[in-house]
Structure formats: structure tokens, C-alpha cells
């Protein structure tokens, strides 16, 4: 994986996506695009490495430490490689009242992982998360940050895992 290299080269596709984000902000405020750029890196690489942070910092004209502050402050950035599918299950109180915690435990038990862990085949990382802002959909979870799945009864969780496995 290219992000293991000490230097990380941004592809043309990534630069084009970065540019679309940078264009939203005043010319002297490129830093505003850092959250979007890091999430693009994560979508493509699965995580944000120190080398990728450095590349983003150069691109946006920020100090590398300022990028690292963002990566470490916001919960959704992965600071290490995870499974191919990150499953983030909300267990906050409104979800807990509607079996959010059981959904988390069911996934952990089906995939033989501890909360926060990755399955032996490297396919799934299961973690609990704070409020997704979808409390009426509980049990509710995210697949790789960008797709939300709702009303996840045990049967639907099993079907989801099956589909992800087949698509892997």
C-alpha cells in the first residue's frame, strides 16, 4: 500500500477531488478543506497515515502538526489500517433503548471480534460509535463512514455481513 511509504504521492484523481473542496473557500483559506481532503484519503486508502497527512499539509499549505491535530481530534478518521469494512454501531442512549448495544454484541459474536477489533480474515472492524443523528432508525450503523444502514435487527445484520463478504 502506497501509504506505507515515507513519501505519499497524491494521484491526479485525488488532486482533482481536493481542488473541488478547496474551491469552496476563500483563496487564503485553503486549510478549510482539510477535513474533506483527509476523508477523501481515508476513502481511497482505508486510513490516514502520517505520510498522507504530510502530503495533505503540503497541498494545503499547513503545518503537518495542524493536520495531525485534525486527524486525531475527529472520531471518524482511522489512524491505523482497519478491516476492509469498518462497521460503526451507535450505542448512545436513544439507540441503547432500541437494541443498539445488542446489535453491536451480535456483530462481535458473529465475527468473533472484540469491540474495536478486526476479524481474522481482515474483512471487518467492528466498533461502537457515538450519536449518528439517526436515532429513530435504531439499531443503526455506518459502513465505511459513508453509508448508513438502518433498522438492523440480527437477521438484517447477518444479511449485511453476507453481502459485504460476497462483495469483498
Amino acid at each position, binding site marked *: 500500500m502506497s501509504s506505507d511509504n515515507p513519501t505519499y504521492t497524491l494521484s491526479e484523481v485525488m488532486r482533482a477531488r481536493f481542488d473541488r473542496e478547496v474551491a469552496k473557500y476563500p483563496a487564503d483559506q485553503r486549510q478549510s478543506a482539510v477535513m474533506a481532503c483527509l476523508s477523501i484519503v481515508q476513502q481511497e486508502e*482505508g486510513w490516514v497515515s502520517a505520510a498522507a497527512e504530510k502530503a495533505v499539509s503540503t497541498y494545503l499549505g499547513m503545518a503537518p502538526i495542524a493536520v495531525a491535530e485534525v486527524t486525531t481530534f475527529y472520531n*471518524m478518521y482511522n489512524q491505523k489500517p482497519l478491516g476492509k469494512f469498518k462497521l460503526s454501531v451507535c*450505542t448512545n442512549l436513544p439507540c441503547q433503548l*432500541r437494541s443498539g*448495544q445488542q446489535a453491536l454484541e451480535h456483530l462481535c459474536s458473529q465475527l468473533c471480534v472484540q469491540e474495536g477489533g478486526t476479524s481474522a480474515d481482515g474483512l471487518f472492524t467492528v466498533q461502537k460509535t457515538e450519536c449518528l443523528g439517526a*436515532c429513530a432508525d435504531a439499531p443503526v450503523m455506518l459502513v465505511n463512514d459513508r453509508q448508513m444502514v438502518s433498522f*438492523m435487527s440480527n437477521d438484517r445484520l447477518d444479511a449485511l455481513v453476507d453481502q459485504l463478504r460476497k462483495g469483498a
Partner: protein
Amino acid sequence: MIAMRQMLDLSRFQAKGRETCFHGRHIQPQIYSELNGSNWSLKDYQARGGYAALRKILGRDGGQGMTPEAVIADVKLSSLRGRGGAGFPTGLKWSFMPRQFPAQKYLVCNSDEGEPGTCKDRDILMYNPHAVIEGMTIAAYAMGITVGYNYIHGEIFEVYERFEAALQEARAAGFLGAHIMGSDTSFELHAHHGFGAYICGEETALLESLEGKKGQPRFKPPFPASFGLYGKPTTINNTETFAAVPWIIRNGGQAYLEVGKHNNGGTKIFSVVGDVNAPGNFEVPMGTPFSKLLELAGGVKGGVLKAVIPGGSSAPVLPAHIMRDITMDYDAIAKAGSMLGSGAVIVMNDTRCMVKSLLRLSYFYQHESCGQCTPCREGTGWLWRMVDRIEKGQGRMEDLELLNSVADNIQGRTICALGDAAAMPVRAMIKHFRNEFVHHIEHKTCMVPAYV
């Protein structure tokens, strides 16, 4: 470089809005009116009267147009209050903006909807995004602002993408950009996403985050109206607040006020969640009785009503006997000792252990404290650890006073309201359900048989 990660089609697992929004159990809806999930686009929005308010103020409907002062006066008359949590009068907030300020000013929409229990803005942005765009454009005109941002919760990425698609439509049709509908008014609007930080719902943390930094709140004053985004005058409103504006302009502030009650104009979207048979969003007139709202959500599930957190997890819990007689508006809920907040109504039945419920909330606040202020950073961890030991049967009777004391030493002593939000649930739980905490300490177990 490896190829971009393929997005699988997970549509059969995704919410389509039937349960939460298109259930037909709203009362006099304005924002959610006539929505079905497939009519979010510009042409559908226009077919149901969309962008008529913008035409009206710009005089592009054959009329005289409205001056910015007249727009603000109408919003003041409507008694619209901020739907994000604080309930501040919107027209008054708009009048604070230094309209004649000679440099750039900004308009920001707070769609960082992460207050536990709340999911109303998600359905607005997903199924009626143009209402927010039109409301923001009207606000921009009223305050002489030319650039805006909508900061959207990173956890609802598909909603962010939907909003971006709606922005494209509005730009292409001339409702956004330079010289809107050929007028002298220009407004450019962009979407920005968060990536998992509850604190960014606090308006100054949100501004820091928009600037590409850690979301740590700023000391106030100066308020955003004088020193906001990039240090420039900025007005920030919640998604639902902006979405209410087109209706007000089309029908008049007086009509909006009359839908609700005195000092509490219009409709409000409540997210009714937890122990109810049909959780979802319900748009109802301000002042609707709680009992009616509960009925819309299918009634209590799995037992009888025990307690309700009426305004998102930061609001003090109220026991059933108080809730049963309450109406859902800012003033009535405040009088009962809680707050309307974001409009998230978390319902709990009589099988729920209040110690365990508080434990989950206390964990959340210590997890999401930004770490900037010592009373919050240290105090939220202290609260969580004490509730945890009570829950585990290792509590001491003096812990109850200590919990109140720690809460007292957080509340009012921090830069932002997260400290208060962590302290208030603790105090209210101990106030109303002290016997359950005492039982846990004395018997090392719950009063109720089992928790979920």
C-alpha cells in the same frame, strides 16, 4: 495507488424515510409537507411553491419586493426561535448583523445534528433540501451576506451528497450565485462536512472546524455577529430554522405565529425516540400536548411511561407525571424544569434503570469533551467513573452528594455549554430518581428486573 474503494449497493438496508418522515402523522406540517422521498429535487420543490418566497422578496413575482428590513421585521413578528437548542429569537439574531459592514460577512447553517435523540435535520436535508437553500438565501439577502456554508454532520454522508446535488440544481437555475434571478443580490452557498465530533454542534467550535482546525469552542464575547468565520461577522442558524423561513415569507409572520402560540411561533419537528412503538419525526404546531405527540409515535412500547428527556440528551429528565400534563413549546417545558432543546424526545418505559441510562450519557459527555476547560475535561470523567461504580454496585452513599458537587463545579464554569450539558442530566436524574441510585448503592443491583 490502489483503486478507490468500491461502494457496494446497500440500498436494501437503508432507510427510505417511510418510518420517520412520510408516515402521514404530522399536524399542519410546513417543512415536511407533501414529501414522499422522490420529490426532493428543484422542479418538485417549485411545483409545491418553492422559491416563491425568494421571488417575492426580490420583486420577481410581479410585486414590489421586500426590503431587507421588512424581511427581518416579518421574521421577528413570526416569533420563530432557533431550532438548534437555544431557542433564541431568529429575527433578533438577524438584526444583530452589522448590515453595512464594508468587508465580507458569512452565513452558516448548523446541520451538525448529533444531539442524542435528534434526527430531524437529516430528513429535511435529504427530502427537502431546497427549503434550506431558499431559507438561507432569504437570510443572506436580509443581512447583506454573499457567502454561506452549510456544515453537515459527517455521519450522514449521503445527506451531504444530496445537499451538494441540490446546490448544483439551484446554481444552474439561477437561485444561487451572482445576480440571483437577474437581481442585484448575489449569494454563493457551499456544503462542508464534519467527521465525528459532537462538540462541533456548538457554534464557535463549528466555526473553528470550518476553518480547518480542531473543534474547540471560542470564548464569547466576541460573538460570531462581530467575530465569526475567518474573524468576520457571521450569523449561524440551525437547519430547521432556515427551512421555516420560506413559509413565513410566503404566508406572513402573523400567520406563522398563529400556527403556534404566543412567543412560540410556527411548527416544530420533534424526533420521538426510545421506548415508543413508531419512532420518527413529527412536525406539529408549537404547544401541542405531549400526550398527542406520544400518540403520533404509537404510544409507549414495552411498559408504561416512566420518564422523558424532552429536548435531547442534554436536557434534564422529567418524570412521567410531569410530562403527561405538559405542552410541547419552549416556555412550557422550561417552566416544568427542562428545555425544549433540539426537539428530541427520548421516551423511557418503567423497565429502564435510570442509573444505567445516566451511565451511557455520562460516558458520551466525557468522550466528547474537547478537553479545553479543566472543569469539563476532568469533571465529565469524574461523573462517568462515579456513575459507573454505582452501576457496578461499588458506590457509596456520599457519592450522590459528590456527584451533585462535581456537577455544580462544572456548570457555568466552562467556555461552552457542553459542561452544562454533562452536568444537567446528572442533577436531574438524582433529583427525580434518587431512590434508584440509593437502591443501587444499598443493594448493589437495579430496582427494575432487567435492562433491555
